[in-house]
């Protein structure tokens, strides 16, 4: 019987190695696998390359850092690939102080590079970023009168995903804007680990409504994480 459910965070995190590239889904706090991030912090892998939409929030005197900023603060992130990093943030400080490399990528290019990895497309041309600083070191070529640059696929050794509902085959649905990067990162992780709010019997999710088929999923952990929070 195929059964992708794991029963503990330790089992979910088992085998994540130092120097891994980790795809981290979510946008703001919505669709962000916060429990898995806590698990990764606990698990100990270091020298990580993290791929995420953004570098996260500023240091706050009232709230200790959690999630990605905490992982950065602990010195576990060698490189951050994202679309957005604030100068006044834990990530921004780490970059400024030379403790972390950063590669800032236009958000659509980031999403497409991840999808390309999942879909077996090693490289593609895009008009986004042509004739800007982003184009530095990129091969450029004209298509239909527009300059386009060549971008590489961005696969992950690990993808951390948050779902709304999952079954034992790893079929997933998402809730509202909690979809965001989750389905694309699920495709592109060599080891895709999911935290899900709800679990259901096989067959409960209608075939036409499954967003991520289980073929992209390796492990599923049931975490009733509660509603996403607004930024503090």
């Amino acid at each position: 019987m195929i059964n992708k459910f794991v029963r503990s965070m330790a089992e979910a995190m088992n085998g994540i190695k130092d120097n891994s590239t980790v795809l981290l889904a979510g946008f703001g706090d919505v669709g962000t696998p916060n429990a898995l991030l806590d698990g990764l912090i606990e698990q100990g892998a270091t020298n990580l390359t993290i791929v995420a939409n953004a570098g996260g929030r500023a240091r706050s005197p009232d709230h200790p850092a959690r999630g990605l900023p905490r992982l950065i603060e602990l010195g576990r992130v060698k490189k951050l690939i994202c679309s957005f990093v604030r100068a006044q943030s834990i990530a921004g400080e780490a970059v400024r102080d030379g403790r972390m490399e950063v590669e800032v990528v236009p958000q659509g290019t980031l999403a497409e590079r991840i999808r390309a990895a999942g879909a077996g497309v090693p490289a593609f041309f895009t008009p986004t970023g042509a004739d800007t600083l982003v184009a530095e070191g990129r091969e450029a070529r004209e298509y239909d009168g527009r300059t386009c640059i060549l971008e590489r696929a961005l696969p992950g050794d690990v993808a951390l995903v948050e779902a709304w509902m999952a079954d034992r085959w790893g079929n997933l649905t998402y809730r509202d804007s909690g979809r965001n990067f989750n389905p694309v990162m699920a495709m592109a992780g060599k080891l895709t680990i999911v935290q899900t709010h709800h679990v259901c019997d096989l067959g409960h999710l209608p075939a036409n409504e499954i967003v991520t088929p289980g073929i992209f999923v390796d492990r599923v952990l049931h975490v009733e994480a509660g509603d996403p929070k607004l930024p503090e």
Partner: protein
Amino acid sequence: MNETAHAFRPLGRAGMAARAAQDIPEGWYVNLGIGIPSLIADHVPADREVVFHSENGILGMGPAPEKHRENPWLINASTQRVSLRTGGSYVHHADSFGIVRGGHLDLCVLGGFQVAENGDLANWAQSASEAGRQIGGAMDLAVGAKRVWVTMEHTTKHGHARILKQCSYPLTAKHCVSRIYTNLAVLEVTPKGFVVIDIIPGLSFDELQARTEAVLHRA
């Protein structure tokens, strides 16, 4: 605004948003950037069906919900809670930017630091060396939408021009802006340069030109 000594009254943020909203017809698919652009949705009458897109995979985004109807699973690209209009739907991030890059949006309205007379836009960084780099989705939107409008103050807080012959900040995209809505005027980017298509009451063309580095043309 230290403009009280003058006979004209520059638009506030809401005023700029309302002016841009006037020009968005029913049926358009529109992405609104962070800042002033995000206010535009509030000024489109509810009976004019405009479908708002948000980078995080929303089509048919509606206004901020009332407190008791908030959906924590529904935020916009600025991570503010929003609502979904009847008919709205969700796509994943790659498809969301497929919508953007594929030319499916009729319009994107972005904030700007600088716009040049050839339509070049700078809106993500003020120098090449910034540690914090906030590209986000702006480059994709600038190259992908059928039309790109910019809403911004006509000059910087210190009175420096933002509407220029050439941008001095790092570019977001070349030749992308077709129109600018400022607190003083509405400018169209044309092959001959900027054409003034609207100007606030009490401000003369010459006074507007004095606040603009690029040469302005009358409509």
